[in-house]
């Protein structure tokens, strides 16, 4: 699979909600070969400074035929703070598309389960699945302001549900409540795709396993290279003392492969 390391011009940088940004860059080569669930490594250092040293991984949120790709990200630390200061016209180096995305299954209902900004890698698969079959989208968050882009999702399917912990949007509660409800209504085979905080994905996986529904998860890990050079992005496997490498074999894995009990 081709990868590109491109000095990409910023075409849009919008703060959507407190600390949540949408960044759009012009990177036709990456846009052209991106698959749903893939990510990029973005240079966040400013000019010729060497701190922060590493690039930051961000999922490809949206692509447009004109060569634009967008990232939906949250300002959590030094790197994303610096990134959020960059303005249209400026250049950021973007390496991508990276990793193994979602393996889309078309012969059964697909359920996308996103938690908070875990929705970022789910828009592209949602758009693809929409064209081919039955799509359920379930989104959860602490409150409505954490998911400022749900309108990108809500139009894709009739089966769209939101849960917030404070009830500020949709049902009050967890996205896993929505999943349990949904699964009660689905009789035949289904397929789950999920991304969000580790405890949420773990809970989704447990629900899925009980019902014997295959589940693909998009994982996060600290990364240095994003392309399999450093072996830094390890996550324990379920069936051995070995490790999965999020940037190369992932970020999307069959949830069965992952040792969900591991905490540092």
């Amino acid at each position, binding site marked *: 699979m*081709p*990868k590109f*390391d491109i000095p990409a011009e910023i075409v849009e940088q919008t703060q959507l909600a407190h600390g949540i940004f949408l960044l759009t860059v012009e990177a036709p080569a990456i846009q052209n070969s991106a698959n749903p669930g893939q990510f990029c490594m973005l*240079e966040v250092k400013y000019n010729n400074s*060497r*701190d*922060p*040293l*590493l*690039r930051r991984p961000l999922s490809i949120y949206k692509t447009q035929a004109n060569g634009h790709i967008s990232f939906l990200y949250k300002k959590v630390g030094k790197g994303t703070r610096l990134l959020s200061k960059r303005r249209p016209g400026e250049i950021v*180096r973007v*390496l991508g598309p990276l990793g193994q995305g979602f393996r889309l299954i078309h012969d059964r209902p697909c359920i996308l389960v996103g938690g908070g900004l875990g929705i970022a890698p789910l828009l592209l698969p949602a758009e693809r699945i929409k064209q081919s079959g039955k799509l359920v989208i379930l989104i959860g968050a602490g409150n409505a302001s954490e998911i400022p882009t749900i309108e990108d999702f809500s139009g894709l399917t009739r089966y769209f549900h939101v849960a917030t912990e404070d009830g500020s949007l949709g049902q009050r509660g967890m996205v896993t409540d929505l999943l349990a409800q949904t699964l009660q209504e689905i009789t035949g085979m289904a397929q789950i795709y999920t991304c969000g905080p580790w405890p949420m994905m773990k809970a989704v996986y447990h629900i899925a396993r009980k019902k014997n529904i295959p589940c693909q998860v998009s994982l996060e*890990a*600290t*990364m*240095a*290279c994003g*392309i*399999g*050079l*450093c*072996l*830094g*992005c*390890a*996550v*324990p496997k379920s069936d*051995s*003392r*070995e*490790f999965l490498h999020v940037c*190369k074999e992932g970020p999307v894995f069959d949830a069965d492969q992952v040792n969900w009990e*591991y905490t*540092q």
Partner: protein
Amino acid sequence: MIHQNDQITKSPDLSIKIGSLVLKNPVLLASGTCGYGTELDGLLDLDQVGGIIVKGISIRPRPGTPPPRLVETPCGLLNSIGLENVGIESFLRDKLPWLRNVKTSLIVNILGNSVEEYSEIAKKLDGAEGVKAIEVNISCPNVKAGGIAFGTDPEAAANVTRAVKKATDLPVIIKLTPNVTDITKVARKVASAGADAVSLINTLLGMAIDIKSRRPALANVFGGLSGPAIKPIALRMVWQVVRAVDIPVIGIGGISTSDDALEFLMAGAKAVEIGTATLIRPSTAEDVPADIRDYMEANSIQNLEDLRLPE
């Protein structure tokens, strides 16, 4: 053909020799930061690189340490990969064939927990087609000596050197650890034990604490520090070792640009390795030799040796 001008500027010669090993230019990919080469396909033209030193290989596959394995520090990177690798058998079977097709020198980095392990891997590599040299990582714990790294004990380092030299006819580069009081002592010992070259530095032992989770940031507590942060320490050690031994010295540590590389070459290093910089910008090892060539042309320097500062 008649030369109209004796002063025709010759293109600078970037090739170097390290024992029987000839490199097209002095910029190598450092072990552990370039995978087994394939991972860089399409992002770096390996043919333009002086050499590739693959991820450290052990006698058996190693799963490595649990995550988190990485922490970013100011201008630095802490890692505790735990020397995860596929093991020598799988390397020879699955990785080597692809690497043979690359037009650059292949150097295999090896590691072990006993002198015997080092020797055994070296033997297996001796006949392997395509392998041009061995780099020996002696920063590993010497299990028989209670886990103290081979590289911190000059005698143990010399023992490993002798064993590997005996096991192979390939040029042997001993990779030194910086976590010592006097690196020239180890360098001198391995030189007299027959090393064809030394490379330095490996990572500096460091740690970080995650004050939010109130835990060491690496599951393994300690990790190796690399990147621009360590360059001044690496350069000092290279400078010292160049002046202590007669064998070629390969400089490593925080090199991200040709300016960084030139500092090491001016200090007397014969070649350099690019580590962490490749993780951040995969094309670095292609850009650096090109920029060194430009520098040499601009300054009318014909040979790499002429870069070395006068004493």
